[in-house]
């Protein structure tokens, strides 16, 4: 028998990882409880924290189920799942009633299905399957054709909802997949450089021309260092210049609510009761927590409903107010441990499918965590991405638990992925 060790590389079940996950879920229930406990006088089984526990329990069952599915099945069902997710996205785009601005759900009566959540997993499986079967080379155009097509459909459909942040999740998964499948970091950088050009050259960024100029210089230097074919290098460079100058045009094509979100992101104080209200209240809540927080249940900001959507998107503010910097740091460390243990799987087994899938899961979790927390502390615009394991919400809890299930599956059965692709 193997020697029992918690962090052992050969341990088939990563109990440490599972422990971190359960801990995060526990914190999540606690925070949802404290954020919503002021709404009293309803039986406990109708409270949000109890529902959250129910979601997590259901999620754990699903995760266990996924863990023991034969690992080779994933690559076979990837394409059908992907197509189903596209159909669902189309349905929600054209047939869902529009509730509160954006029609993102399909109401199944007992459950509000969010096709974009389902699409995250389906797309992850699909791109991992494809990239694990086909070599990747930055200099070969055909490398990008199929991944590009796979990417563009869910991306555009989600963007049309409109849900920019979720669309960016697909981007992150794609980039991570390409990176783990063989692209260099600098090559990934070249791919996303036009995006940076757009952001940095935007007139609302302070000293935008300076930043963008510096960025262009760095880009030029890297292109020179990488010794890319002259035509490709020039093309990337010119695309960046073009993107920079047309960013204002692109700005005009953003949805008004997205424009406003970006605008208030740069100056949340300008309109404390309007768009910047959420961010300002959230920052106040977190900042007023201090080093050790106001204590569990003593959050004045949250308990007196100054924080909007405190139990969903702004759950981190609840944490910051009640548990302070120490609490926030502990949660950040837990997330890091989660990602570290997940990436260990990629080191454990060399099969590209396992590597790309695990790192893709990490990309999704990482992107959600970073963007959500950055939003609550005023570093990024308000996007509406929930915080994994902490935010209230059935669909997203399911997604997270599916992802955990996939990771456990990879860990447990990764060795079975042998042979060529």
């Amino acid at each position, binding site marked *: 028998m193997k020697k029992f060790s918690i962090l052992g590389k050969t341990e088939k079940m990563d109990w440490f990882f599972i422990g971190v996950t359960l801990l995060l879920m526990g914190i999540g229930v606690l925070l949802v409880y404290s954020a919503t406990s002021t709404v009293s006088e309803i039986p406990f089984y109708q409270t949000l924290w109890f529902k959250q526990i129910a979601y997590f329990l259901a999620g754990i069952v699903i995760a266990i189920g996924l863990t023991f599915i034969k690992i080779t099945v994933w690559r076979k069902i990837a394409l059908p799942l992907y197509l189903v997710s596209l159909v669902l996205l189309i349905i929600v785009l054209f047939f869902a009633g529009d509730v509160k601005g954006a029609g993102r759900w399909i109401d199944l009566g007992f459950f509000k299905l969010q096709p974009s959540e389902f699409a995250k997993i389906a797309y992850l499986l699909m791109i991992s399957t494809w990239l694990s079967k086909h*070599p990747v080379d930055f200099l070969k155009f055909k490398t990008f054709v199929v991944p590009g097509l796979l990417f563009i459909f869910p991306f555009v459909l989600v963007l049309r909802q409109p849900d920019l942040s979720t669309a960016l999740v697909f981007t992150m998964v794609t980039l*991570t997949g390409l*990176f*783990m*499948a*063989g692209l260099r*970091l600098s090559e990934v950088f070249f791919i996303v450089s036009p995006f940076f050009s757009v952001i940095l050259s935007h007139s609302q960024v302070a000293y935008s021309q300076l930043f963008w100029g510096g960025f262009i210089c760095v880009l030029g230097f890297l292109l020179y260092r990488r010794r890319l074919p002259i035509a490709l290098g020039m093309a990337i460079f010119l695309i960046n210049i073009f993107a920079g100058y047309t960013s204002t045009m692109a700005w005009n094509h953003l949805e008004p609510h997205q424009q406003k979100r970006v605008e208030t992101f740069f100056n949340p104080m300008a*309109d404390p*009761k*309007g*768009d910047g209200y959420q961010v300002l*209240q959230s*920052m*106040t*809540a*977190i*900042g*007023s*927590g*201090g*080093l050790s927080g106001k204590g569990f249940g003593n959050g*004045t*900001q949250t308990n*007196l*409903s*100054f*924080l*909007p959507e405190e139990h969903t998107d702004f759950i981190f503010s609840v944490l*910051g*107010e009640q548990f*302070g*910097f120490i609490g*926030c*740091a502990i949660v*950040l460390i837990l*997330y*890091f441990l989660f*990602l*570290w243990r997940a*990436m260990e799987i*990629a*080191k454990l087994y*060399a*099969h*590209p499918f396992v*590597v790309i899938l695990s*790192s893709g899961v*990490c990309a999704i979790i*990482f992107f959600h965590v*970073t963007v959500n*927390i*950055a939003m609550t*502390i*005023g*570093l990024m615009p308000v996007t509406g991405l929930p915080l994994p394991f902490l935010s209230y919400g059935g669909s997203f809890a399911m997604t997270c638990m599916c992802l955990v299930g996939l990771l456990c599956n990879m860990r447990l059965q990764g060795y079975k992925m*042998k042979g*060529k*692709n």
Partner: protein
Amino acid sequence: MFNSLNNNEDVQNRNMKVLIYLLLVWIAFCILGFRLFHLQYVHYKENFERSENNRIRRMEIEAERGFIYDRNGEILVRNRPSYQIVIDAEQMPRKKDAKDSLFRLLLEIRNELGVRMLDSASLDTAFQRTAWIRNRPIRILEDASPEEVAIIEEHSQELPGVYAIIESRRDYPYGTLAAHALGYTSEISEKQLASEEYKDKYESGDRIGQKGLEQQYDIEFRGKDGVKTVEVNAYGRIVSEMKGMGEQPAIPGMHLVSTLDLRVQLAAEKALPDSVRGAIVAIDPRNGEILAMVSSPRLDPNVFSLKRKERNRGWAKVALDSTRPLLNRAIAGVYPPASIFKLVTTGAGMEHNLLSVNKYYPHRCDGGYQFGNRYQKCWGVHGNLNVVNALRLSCDVYFYQAGLEIDMERINEFGRRFGLGEEILGVDIPGERRGWLPDSASFNKRNKRSGWRWARGLILNLAIGQGQLVTPLQQAVLVGSLATNAGVYRPHLMKELRSRDGTVVKRFTPEIVRPGKMKESTHQVILAGMDSVVNHPGGTGKRGALKGIRVGGKTGSGEWKKGEKTHAWFAAVAPLYAPEIAVSVILESSGGGGALAAPVARQVMEAYFSRDSVFSRKENP
């Protein structure tokens, strides 16, 4: 990396990538950590203060308005709780489209009957006012029913800045009873706010007393608003009260014990139906306390505490009414004093020894009197009379001749001595008018435009009380002080101001405002005249007589317009030789005073003397 599971270089390459990946994660988390540290440690203080200010608000506590009691402790005016739906500028959305949608949402709210609770015009005004009134909530629905409050509370999540507060509003349990004396309350008007009198004492949105006692003693009723510190949530709802933060309790307003006697007032109200224009004043001539004051048609002061819609309807009804229910006829209605003025003519004559009980005028009453080329009629044929009988029969011919002999200067001087004429008596409610006693100078001045000049012939009219202007209050004061011969006391409605625990803070001290004195012989003649009017055969005021109590009085039928019925006057005092109550009654364009007004006065006096005597006699020994 592909197909090379055992290739060492590829494994290293892949591990390197994992490391790079984790490094990126680490960097991102460090940035988040730095930012958190910045917010939670470096800027902790500001953020903490902001979070405190978020939830802590200083609020005014409305002081409860004092009640009004009648002289025996019956409640005439009290308060009732009233729900107000308000909008708070600090809590409502700032963005225009959010505001618009809130506006539309509010308009769509229907009450339990399916009727819209708010109308767009007043809601629009309220929304506009939120732009500049930021320190206090603005009422959008006044005096809401509990059902309406429940509907608003149900939708509180969708209606940021809209909530219900409890205010106390005035309640007049007897409705229109003594409405003109009591007054009413309403929100202070822009005009009042701008005036010197109100500017520093009140602020916009205050409900203040209007007219009557409510206005006169507003400061005393109001008390002093307090301040408290409360914790509120994001919707502006109070979650808890915080102690030890400089709160000041509200000092409730004082109660006012009025001089009104509910039973006398009730009898007076009953005797004067709303369909008849007129007024009744009953005072105690020994100290000027007003026992009853009725002005008809009446208004219901409760209307002014209702919802805007109902209030406006009620307001329009009284303001546009041609019978002018808003006018307090008892103090602000001016009428010719008619034959009651003959008492003044008599008094003036007696004072200057121009009249006596034994004096007869050469011209006996044969139905009229020839003066120059004018023939002035009398209302009957009375023959030769002395002064007492002339009063009893109210003979005009006698007083034509007496007036000519005495002259207006002496008559007016006597009238002024007993409260008529150029100065108001100073009753403690606003709006009193002073009337007019014309003489040659003031007549010419007043009629400058029309070109009428003073002529001696006018004395004929003035001697019988046609041409002067007096108020019903003045008439009551006149007969009362003629009967007492002890000075004219300032008529007043406030008896005592009491603090909440019942201690008397201020008591009205009776004050003589006119000499009200005459020679004893004059007094005797006037008493005899008033006595004979009521109690002697043929007396015009016999319908004013009471069983067991000697009533003295004088009737009057005021001519005010050709072809119209006369104003029916009756002024009485009882008991005549130890007066406790003086009553004046006027019924506009109704007919003769003896027939119509005297019974009304009798009912009032009856009520006064049939009161639970244990109570009243003790108070008025």
